[in-house]
Structure formats: structure tokens, C-alpha cells
């Protein structure tokens, strides 16, 4: 659906994007992850046609009218009602017959006749989603759609995005990794204008999966750290809390065979131990460190 090659954007001497090769397949829910200032908004702006690239090519398999863009903080003329805002979007992109349906889907049916100026932040975000959905877009570009919402508003917007799977291709930028991990099937990691990784989420998590155990035990930890660091099958060991150790091993099998015995030999008073789950956050930190 989206293919960019060598996409570069400079603002004066600042390089906002540096040779980005983005591939978003049709039907994907693609999460573009990166810290603030990574270039996510610039990339979405280029794809939306709101900015011009300094260099590189963009190919999108959708007409401009089939692309919906939702900014991070949607704003509307405050004197419009919610329904009128959606009707305006429908007039511009088509889909007048879907106005009631998208208002319902966004949970705004009861508030549709109220002036937008009285809407909460979450309601504005959902109204933005409704305006984007009304034209039945083939591609949706969502810039940090849930980043400034309270937990309830965030949940509502994430559920809306999750429901888009199968009906639209979604490119969704966020610095909240848990959101991306929850709703996206493909991930791109952007940092300082460079795309460090892109591919299926599972591939990222498995590829970044360094086998590691988390051990909780009574202090002092120093003798245990010293003992474990001398074991051949331990590649690293570190205290990650006052009573917690992270033991990186060559393989989980090694840990399963040797770890409990080694802890006993070190006379550790063990409270619990478990293999560490791989999260997008950890994979992201591994890549951007």
C-alpha cells in the first residue's frame, strides 16, 4: 500500500528523515514507533501530502480521496456540532449515508447535536476518528491518536483502531509502545530520522529475545551476583532492584538446568524466579540504545 525509497526531509540544517525505506502492506495495521522528535509526524506529513520531501520517492496505492489523516490533536470549528463536522467530512470525501453509523461507532450519537467547543479531549479524538472513517478510506494515517488521552479515552480510541483491521490499511504512529504492541501487526522503529527496523511484530520480539531470567531474593545480592557471574552459561548478571536480579543466559535451557542449583549453591534466599517476557519496549530499547 505504501512504499517509500530514500525518503529524506531536511529543515534547514536539521535532518528530520534520513533515507527512509518504508513498506506498508495492504491491510496491515502498521505501528510507527519512536521517541518524540524521531521524525514520525514528518513522515506522516510527507505521506499525507502536507509536506514535500527533500529527496526520495513515495508510492501510495490509494487516491488522495481514499486516504484519511488524523492529527494528534484534532481541532474543529468550535461552533459546529459534532454531526456537522462529520457531515462536512462526508461531503468532502463521500459517505454521507454513513454519518449515523460512524457517529454510533465513535460513541458520539448522544453528543452529536452539541457544539464541538464543549467536547472533551477524548470526544474530539473520537470525532476525528469518525470524520476519518466516514469516507471509508483505504488508508488511514493516524498520528499519536491516543497519546494525550486519559486511560478511558485511550482505550476507546485503541478499540476503534483495532476494529479497523481488515477494512483499511492503518499506519499508526506512537511513542506509547504498549499501544502499538496491542493493536499493530507490523512495526517500524524510527529514531533520529532513521528506520532502524520494520517487519512483523513477532519477528521483532523473537529477534530481540535475549534469554533472561528475573530472580527475586533476599538481600544482600552481591555474593549471589559474584557467584553467578563466574558461571560459564551466564552471559550477564545485574541487579535491577533492591531484591531483584536479571540473569542473562546463553539459552533458556541452560537456565532451566543450572539456575536453581547455582542459586542454592550461592545460598540465595529465593522468593521467586521466572523467564523475562519480551516486550516491544525492551526490543525498542535494545535497538535505540
Amino acid at each position, binding site marked *: 500500500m505504501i512504499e517509500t525509497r530514500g525518503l529524506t526531509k531536511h529543515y534547514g540544517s536539521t535532518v528530520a528523515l534520513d533515507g527512509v525505506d518504508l513498506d506498508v502492506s495492504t491491510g496491515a495495521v502498521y505501528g510507527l514507533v519512536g521517541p518524540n522528535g524521531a521524525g514520525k509526524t514528518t513522515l506522516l506529513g510527507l505521506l499525507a501530502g*502536507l509536506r*514535500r520531501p527533500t529527496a526520495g520517492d513515495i508510492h501510495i496505492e490509494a487516491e488522495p480521496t481514499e486516504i484519511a489523516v488524523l492529527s494528534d490533536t484534532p481541532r474543529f470549528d468550535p461552533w459546529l456540532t459534532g454531526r*456537522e463536522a462529520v457531515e462536512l467530512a462526508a*461531503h468532502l470525501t463521500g459517505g454521507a449515508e454513513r454519518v449515523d453509523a460512524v457517529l454510533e461507532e465513535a460513541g458520539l450519537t448522544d453528543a452529536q447535536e452539541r457544539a464541538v467547543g464543549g467536547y472533551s479531549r477524548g470526544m474530539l479524538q473520537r470525532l476525528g476518528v469518525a470524520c476519518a472513517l466516514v469516507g471509508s478510506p483505504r488508508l488511514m494515517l493516524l498520528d499519536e491518536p491516543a497519546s494525550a488521552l486519559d486511560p478511558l479515552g485511550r482505550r476507546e480510541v485503541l478499540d476503534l483502531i483495532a476494529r479497523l483491521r481488515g477494512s483499511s490499511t492503518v499506519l499508526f504512529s506512537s511513542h506509547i509502545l504498549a499501544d502499538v504492541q496491542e493493536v499493530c501487526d507490523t512495526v517500524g522503529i524510527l529514531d533520529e530520522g532513521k528506520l532502524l527496523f520494520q517487519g512483523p511484530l513477532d519477528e521483532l520480539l523473537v529477534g530481540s529475545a535475549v534469554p533472561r531470567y528475573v530472580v527475586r531474593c533476599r538481600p544482600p545480592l552481591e555474593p549471589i551476583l559474584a557467584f553467578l557471574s563466574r558461571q560459564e552459561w551466564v552471559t550477564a548478571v545485574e541487579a535491577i532492584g533492591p531484591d531483584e536480579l536479571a540473569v542473562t543466559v546463553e539459552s533458556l535451557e541452560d537456565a532451566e538446568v543450572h539456575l536453581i542449583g547455582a542459586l542454592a549453591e550461592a545460598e540465595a534466599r529465593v522468593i521467586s524466579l521466572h523467564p523475562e517476557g519480551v516486550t516491544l519496549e525492551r526490543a525498542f530499547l535494545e535497538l535505540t540504545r
Partner: protein
Amino acid sequence: MSLWRLEWLRLTRTKRWIALVGVYLFFGLLGPFTARYMAEIISFAGGELEGATIELPPPVPADGMIQYVSSVTQIGTLVAVVVAAGSVAFDAIPEMGVFLRTRVRDLSRILTPRVVVVTTALLASFLIGALAAWYETRVLIGPLDAGSVVIGSALSMLYLVFVVALVTAVAQRARTVIGTVMVSILILLLLPIFGISEAVGRWLPSHLASSLAALSAGEAAADYLPAAAVTVVVTAGLWWLALELARRREL
């Protein structure tokens, strides 16, 4: 909900039409009144200064229009610039600009309703004020030549069309509504300064601003044809420039 209806709602729900009509109608009623009763007003305000007595000649009908025009050329134009800037600076709030720009690729579709609706409201307001001034002048002072009033009003309205076009072009470069207003006012203030020389001034759009008063006082309409021709061309150029700047703008 079309973009035309959106602009109509902007004009009516934000009460901007009241600001426009109110200002022009107020000065339309006030101008002839002050022209007729200027001597009495000065007398009430303490007309004798250090033993000197101010004596004014009896008012003539043209004075009614002169008072109207002098007021609306300043305050009326300022209100017009503010109202126009609030409408045509559609990127001033970038999120609203994104909403429109990602749905409408031909930017003239966005700008045309905004310019047409605000210009129409402005011209109607000017006309209401001019008609009020004309009627009140006739009642209080005496009749004016209808042809002069009609042609003078038409030329003044052409100047207002130029003002909106100027604001529209400026808005596509300025980042805020306030910035648009400030730059537009600055340009409108500079124009008469450039036109201090009569040889230059008679070609400038700002020459048209006083045409209603001048024609009511007996000047020939032909004196304003050069400025009218230049204004038409410059207005068209500003409209082209506005579209070009809007296309080049990045959000």
C-alpha cells in the same frame, strides 16, 4: 454540509456579520448627523478656545458622505481585515488546516467560499451603511446626486474587494490570524504614503477608498478609472498569489 454552508455558518454563528453590519450602519447613521450638527456639537463641547470662536460653514450634502467615508475607511477597514483574516487564514490552526487539506486537494475549493462569503458580507455592510448615510443626508442636509453615490459606492466596494484579496494573500504566508491582520494593516497604511504624490496616488487602489466622498463632492468619476483598472489587475494577481502560496505551504 458544503464548504459554502460552512462559511455561512461561520459568518452567522460567530456573529461576525453583526460586527460588519453594525460598524458600517453605525457610521452610516452617525456621519450625516455629525456633519449636520457639527457646529452644535463643538458648541456643546466648549467651542470657544481662549477667546477664539470657531465658526463652521453651513453643511452641504457632500459632508454627510465625507463623514461616513472618513470613519469607515479607518475603523470599517480594520474590522473588515479582522473578519476576513479570521476566515481566510485556514491554516492558522494547523489541525484544522490538516482536516481540510487532506480532504480537498484543489485549494481554490477551500479558499473560494471563504473569500466570496466574507467579501459579500463586507460589500453588503458597506452598502447598508452608504444607503443609510445617503438617506440621512437627504433628510438632514439635502439631496445628493444619485449617479455620484452609485458610482462612488461601486468604486469603494472595488477597494474592499482588493482589501479582502490582500488579506487572503497575506494569510497564506503568515502563521497566525493576528500576524495576518498586522501585516495587512501595515500594507494598507503604507499604500496612501506611497500615493502622496498625486501622479502615483491616482493609480493606487487606496485612491478608491475616498471615491464615494469625492464623487459626492463633485469630482469626476473618470479621475478614478486608473486606480480602478489597477485595482482589478492587482486583485486578480493577489488571488493568484494566495493560491500559489497556499499550494507551497507545508504544515
